[in-house]
């Protein structure tokens, strides 16, 4: 959220494997700020988020590292 405040990006990448309850909390806390939560798919064999998946998601404009 801090990075978003500076970059004005509207996208936040969230791994698909994150607990759905936690994702609901994200929506409750930040959903009112017109942000788009984009889910990153996980590896169907290992259920982990791969760096390739992350890089594909980052290919769009996201909040940069501070």
């Amino acid at each position: 959220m801090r990075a978003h405040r500076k970059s004005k990006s509207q996208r936040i990448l969230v791994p698909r494997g994150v607990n759905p309850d936690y994702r609901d909390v994200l929506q409750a806390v930040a959903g009112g700020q017109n942000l788009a939560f984009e889910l990153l798919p996980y590896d169907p064999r290992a259920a982990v988020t791969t760096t390739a998946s992350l890089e594909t998601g980052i290919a769009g404009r996201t909040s940069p590292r501070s």
Partner: protein
Amino acid sequence: MSLAVLKPPGEWGAKGADIVCGEGQPLGVALSSGRPLLRFHDHAHGTTCGRCPAASWDARRLDGKPGFTLTLQAREQHIRRSKATSNICTNQGLLVTAATIYMSLVGPQGLAKVASTCIQRTAELVAALAGVPGVRVAFNGPRFHEAVLLLEPAGSRSAPRRSRRGASWGGVDISRDYPSLGNPLLVCATETRTPGTSPPMPRARGRDAERGRGLRNTTCANS
């Protein structure tokens, strides 16, 4: 808790993680009606906001009207509200004290032992349940204290149920959140249950296993 055996987030990647947050409930904080909970939050650069308001819409009780709350506040900020003579709020200090005492008693080596125990018990649980007919493990990646099992046939459904001893749950049905998995069940093992008190012993066979009845002795993180 998993950070006790993982590389510190500050060493992740080329620059390390900018922000680290997590759940501190396993650090000696007892659950009481689902609350209170404790989180930890650290950041390497800059500052974080002092408050974070949130809104939710209750479709059942308020006819869709919004409700507002401060989901994050670094400190009590409405002491002067209505000129109150006392300040009654959630006592975060109690949770901080409990977590501090727990970490002081357990220590770094103890935390690593707890984390390793979680990994070991989960492996034992998964190995035992994978032997039940009609049950297979969904993923083969590394895991800490949770695992997803697939119950077959995919069309069957079973509501998570408490075990006979009342000390464990039969897992969490996550099919609504992950429909592509078919009939998944999330199970968990932690350091709080020993094999002697809650052995992962599948009992059912055949059709019982298809209904998830063979998963009586699984445990969940909040048990």
